[in-house]
Structure formats: structure tokens, C-alpha cells
């Protein structure tokens, strides 16, 4: 199993950990080498002194050694050393070292507990010599120990500073990279949500992040320009068509008036109705573009959706009655949210009209507004023929009218407009099977 860190944070954590381990090893080795070298130097000197006392090759008698010790005690280069020579009975023959108990033969360390005057860190060499005597040479290692302690402290402080620098540097890199990536993510989210004018902040430093942000922004500019071109082209076409269509409509309306009581009347009335429908499509398309542009969000104000449902219900009741439908409105107290009252009104009108227009006479249609958690659900339920579940998404799409009965009115933009208005308010439209019939539910967040 291989572990490969994926996140920047994990990579940096691994990097800093490796650095710490390596630093610890290097600094530790450094300390151990110096420490050992110092100790070896002390031991070498003790051995050399002992050899000088014993004499070459190993001849000296106790008396000779005592004389040599006495001589060394007055020599300058041996001033920091302590000597002891005991005969086989354990009696001191020469030297100035006082030890309670003798250390074992060979090298050994002693401290305060040995109670040697003025020595807290000492090193002793004990050797059996001629005539069963014992020679002890000890050195005062206080200076060496102090140096050793300083060396250890210096290595430790150095290690801590280096670790802090690496960890801090890695943290700063993670923070800065994350901050830039977050800024880019925020922009991507905004663009995905339809705000094509959103851009990644640039600080003008021209560093690699700034250059990348600029390149990203340039790409967004390009997309925005292309989208605007498409939009403008569509709008231009629509406007170019709408002027002649409006004039055509005027002329057809006049023709239809003049043709009253002539054999042409039925035809001219039909042409007028067709022209009306084409103009309706244009009006709906323009409306859709206006809503999708998102500019109307700046005019949001508190709206009581329950109140909107009641006034729309009042308005459409005669229309439903004329269509032979039973229409009712249910709300549960005020239902406030921040929105565009004109658009919300149009949304509810479209929802109810959709039910009236796409069901046969005698259908029961119910409009309701209720709070579900943090959303308001505006629902229109009918017990008409309904829409197959697989077609629910299609009918919301632009011109996605279900062509079961092509003689029914409607240009297929009603639910698209409802969806666009819902999305402008941070909500959505969904269609459900009311078994029998259709249930269209707009869920709007109370706090967008």
C-alpha cells in the first residue's frame, strides 16, 4: 500500500516532518561526535599521565611512582589532575585525591557524591600497578561538562529555530496558496451561479498567482464577451423581428375590424390570433432575458407571499370559473421573504394559469403557500391528466412544451419563466405527480 499525500496541507506536513527528522539526526550526530571527541581527549590524557607515573615499560616500584607523583603535583601542566597511590593494604602512599571508595579498575565518571573537593564532574582512571598497589588519576572535568552543556543547548536552540522557520514557511505557503485558490473558487462559484461579471481579485504584484488570476480573468472576460455576443445577437434578431411583427399586428387588427361581416372575417380573426401568439412569445422571451440578467435583484424588498397568493387567487378565480374549474387558495398566515413583488406575482399567475390552461374543464386546482423549514413552498396542485414523470424536466426547459395535444394554447415559456423567477430568488421549481394530476412546487429560501 502506498501513501501519497493529496492535499497541499498534507504535502507540507510531510515535508516539515521529514525536515525535522533530518535536522534532529544531523544536530544529534554533531553533538554526539563532539561530545565523544572531548571525552576521548580526557581519557587519552589520563592514560598518558598514568603511563608517565608507572614508567616504561612497567618497571617502577611504589617508591618511584610516589616520587613521580610528588614531582607532577608541582608541575604546571598537571595542576588540574588529582593523584592517589595506595599500597596493597589500601594505605595512601602518595597523592592528594580523597575518595571514599575506590572505583573499579579502568575508566569511570564520578560526581558530587564522590565528595572530591571542588569537583562536580570528574573522570577517573584506576590501574593496578607493581607490588599490588593501585594508582588512581582523576581529572576535574567541570569545564568540559560546562562546554558540553553549552554545546547541547546550542544544538537544541538551533534545531528549534530551524523547525520554526520551516514550519512557519510551510504554513505561510499553505495559507497563501489556499487564500488564492479560495478566491478563485469563490469566483468560479459566482460564475456558475450566473454572475458572469465576477472576477478573481488581483493585487498587482505580477507574481505567479497574480498572473494566473489575470489569465483566468481574461478567460472569463472572453466567455462573458462571447455570451454577451450571443445574447445581443438573439436580442437583435428578436428586436428586428418584433418591430415588423408589431406593425403586422396593427395592420392585421385593422384588417380584422374592416373584414367584420365579410367572408374574410374568420380567416383574418385566425391570423390576428396567430400574430398575438407570436408577439406573446417575444414578450415572454424578453421577460426571460430580463429576469436571467439578474438586475432586478437590486430592487428586492420584503414581500408577503401569502398576500400575493390571495390577490392572484382573487384575480384568477373568475378565469378558473369560466374554464369550469374549481379553484381554491390556502395559506397559513403571513409568509415574508425578500423579493421582487411584481415577479413573484407573475410567477404565481403563471403557475395557476398553467394549471387552468393545460387541464380540461372540471379540474380541481389548489394554490397553497406554506413554510417548510427555512423555505416557503408555493404549490399549485391539480387533479388533471398530469405529466409523465420522465417529462417533468423537459417542460421546465425553454420551449419544452409537452406536445400531447397540439391544439392547446401556450408557447411553452410559462414554467421556464416560473423557474427563472424562482432561481432569481435563490429557489427552484419542481414538478411532482399528484396522483392523479400535477403538483408544481416552487421552494424559495426565506433568507436567500
Amino acid at each position: 500500500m502506498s501513501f501519497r499525500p493529496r492535499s497541499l496541507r498534507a504535502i507540507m506536513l510531510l515535508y516539515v516532518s521529514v525536515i525535522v527528522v533530518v535536522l534532529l539526526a544531523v544536530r544529534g550526530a554533531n553533538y554526539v561526535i563532539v561530545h565523544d571527541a572531548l571525552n576521548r581527549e580526557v581519557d587519552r590524557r589520563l592514560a598518558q599521565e598514568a603511563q608517565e607515573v608507572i614508567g616504561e615499560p612497567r618497571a617502577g616500584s611504589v617508591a618511584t611512582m610516589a616520587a613521580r607523583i610528588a614531582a607532577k603535583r608541582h608541575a604546571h601542566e598537571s595542576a588540574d589532575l588529582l593523584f592517589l597511590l595506595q599500597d596493597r593494604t589500601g594505605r595512601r602512599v602518595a597523592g592528594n585525591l580523597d575518595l571514599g571508595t575506590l572505583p573499579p579498575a579502568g575508566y569511570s565518571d564520578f560526581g558530587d557524591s564522590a565528595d572530591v573537593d571542588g569537583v562536580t564532574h570528574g573522570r577517573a582512571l584506576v590501574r593496578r600497578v607493581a607490588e599490588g598497589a593501585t594508582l588512581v588519576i582523576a581529572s576535574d572535568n567541570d569545564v568540559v561538562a560546562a562546554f558540553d552543556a553549552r554545546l547541547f543547548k546550542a544544538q537544541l536552540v538551533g534545531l528549534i529555530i530551524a523547525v520554526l522557520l520551516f514550519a512557519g514557511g510551510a504554513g505561510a505557503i499553505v495559507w497563501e496558496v489556499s487564500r488564492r485558490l479560495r478566491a478563485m473558487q469563490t469566483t468560479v462559484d459566482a460564475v456558475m451561479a450566473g454572475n458572469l461579471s465576477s472576477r478573481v481579485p488581483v493585487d498587482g504584484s505580477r507574481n505567479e498567482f497574480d498572473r494566473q488570476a489575470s489569465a483566468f480573468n481574461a478567460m472569463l472576460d472572453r466567455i462573458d464577451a462571447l455570451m454577451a455576443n450571443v445574447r445581443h445577437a438573439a436580442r437583435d434578431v428578436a428586436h428586428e423581428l418584433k418591430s415588423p411583427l408589431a406593425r403586422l399586428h396593427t395592420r392585421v387588427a385593422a384588417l380584422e375590424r374592416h373584414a367584420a361581416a365579410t367572408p374574410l372575417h374568420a380567416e383574418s380573426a385566425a391570423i390576428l390570433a396567430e400574430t398575438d401568439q407570436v408577439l406573446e412569445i417575444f414578450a415572454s422571451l424578453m421577460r426571460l432575458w430580463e429576469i436571467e440578467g439578474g438586475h432586478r435583484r437590486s430592487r428586492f424588498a420584503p414581500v408577503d407571499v401569502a398576500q400575493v397568493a390571495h390577490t392572484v387567487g382573487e384575480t384568477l378565480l373568475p378565469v378558473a370559473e369560466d374554464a369550469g374549474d374549481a379553484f381554491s387558495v390556502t395559506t397559513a398566515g403571513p409568509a415574508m421573504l425578500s423579493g421582487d413583488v411584481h415577479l413573484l406575482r407573475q410567477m404565481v399567475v403563471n403557475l395557476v394559469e398553467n394549471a387552468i390552461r393545460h387541464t380540461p374543464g372540471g379540474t380541481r386546482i389548489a394554490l397553497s403557500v406554506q413554510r417548510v423549514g427555512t423555505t416557503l413552498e408555493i404549490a399549485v396542485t391539480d387533479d388533471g391528466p398530469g405529466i409523465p414523470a420522465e417529462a417533468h424536466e423537459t417542460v421546465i426547459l425553454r420551449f419544452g412544451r409537452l406536445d400531447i395535444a397540439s391544439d392547446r394554447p401556450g408557447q411553452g415559456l410559462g414554467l421556464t419563466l416560473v423557474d427563472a423567477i424562482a432561481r432569481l430568488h435563490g429557489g427552484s421549481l419542481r414538478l411532482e405527480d399528484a396522483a392523479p394530476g400535477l403538483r408544481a412546487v416552487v421552494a424559495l429560501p426565506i433568507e436567500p
Partner: protein
Amino acid sequence: MRLLVVEDDARTARLLVSDLADLGHDSVVAPDGRAALLQATADQFDAVLLDVMLPHVDGIGVARALRDRGVSVPIVMLTALGDLDQRLVGLDAGADDYLVKPAAPVEIEARIKAIQRRTARANDGGVMRAGDIEVNEVKHRAVRNGRVLTLPKLEFQMLCELIRNKNSVVTRQMFYRTVWDYDFEPATNIVESYIRRVRAQLCANGEADPITTIRGVGYMIVDQG
């Protein structure tokens, strides 16, 4: 009527002038905001049709300047679709009404007449008459030939609009704007449904129907008196 058409696009202006001429109206064209201001202050017009997007001074600026100079001529703004903010700013600047381009000439004519009615009727105490029908807007009371009509709020408002604009057409758009405050056209025949109810009340005793349907445009009450 004598109209000032403020429109920078020559082709659109020419078509609009010819359409209005078909309805019997004389028009003068001003191609930009500055010319519009000069014309409107120097000359007398029955109404100004004001495009919003204009060179030099835009339509909103023209409306504001005219009102600042005390010129009270009815102003109808013509705006592009999808620019509701401009429409609202235009109304704030002193325009009396707005229409989305391209507007049908009959709609323009109906709007201008409606503005003229509104300004003419200053102190009628809310009482308006058309033939044998009398409405009191303040008291919410409608009477035909001595018979009190039972009209719900919306139907009553429709009747008021028809009588206020008697002898000229009230378009569907005008009903949606004044009675319902809708800035869109519903897909169902809301106006037709309500007119049917108003008619039913007006003709409950078998009287003649006073409301004339202008196909494809709207409705009108004719008062010969």
C-alpha cells in the same frame, strides 16, 4: 392630435409618424434630446412620445428638464424591453406613462388620451358618468339607470377605467396596469373574464350592452350625450 415624436432612429421615427398619421394625428420628429427640448418649449403639442436612448440629452433628462421648465404636456416614454428600472426612473423624472417598444399606434393613442383624461378631471368629486351609468369612485358605488350595481372591487375598477376613458379605447395592457398593477400580460383572458362579469351586471335587466369590444385592442364605452 399634434404629437412630438422624439426618436433618433430615422426609420423607426418615419414608421411611427406614418402609423400615427393613419389614426389622424400630425407628428413632428425631433432626432435628439436637445432638439426635443427646443421644440417642446417653443411649440404646443398634445403629447410627447419620448425614446429613452437619445444622443446629447437622454429621454429621462428631457422629461426632467421639461417638467423643471413647467411644461405640463403629457409625456409617454418608449423604452426597450427588459429595462424596468429605466421605466421607473422615467416615471420619477416626470413622464406620465411608459410603453415598451415597439408599441402599437392604437396603444400609444389610448395612453395619451388616458393621460389627458386624468389631467382634465380635477374636481369631479370622484363621480363620473357615461350615458345612463354613473360611478362614484370614492364611495365605491355604481348605478345604471337608477339601479345600484353589485360589482366586486376589481370589476368596479374596470368600469371606472372604461368610464374615465369613455369614447376612447381602454387596452388590455391598460387594464392590467391600472387595475392589477401587472407589468406583464397574463396568458389567460383575465380581462375578458372580468368584462363578462361587468357586462352581466350592467345588462342584468336586459338593457343594451354599453361596452364595445375593439377586437385585438381593448374595450370602450361610447357616450353619445
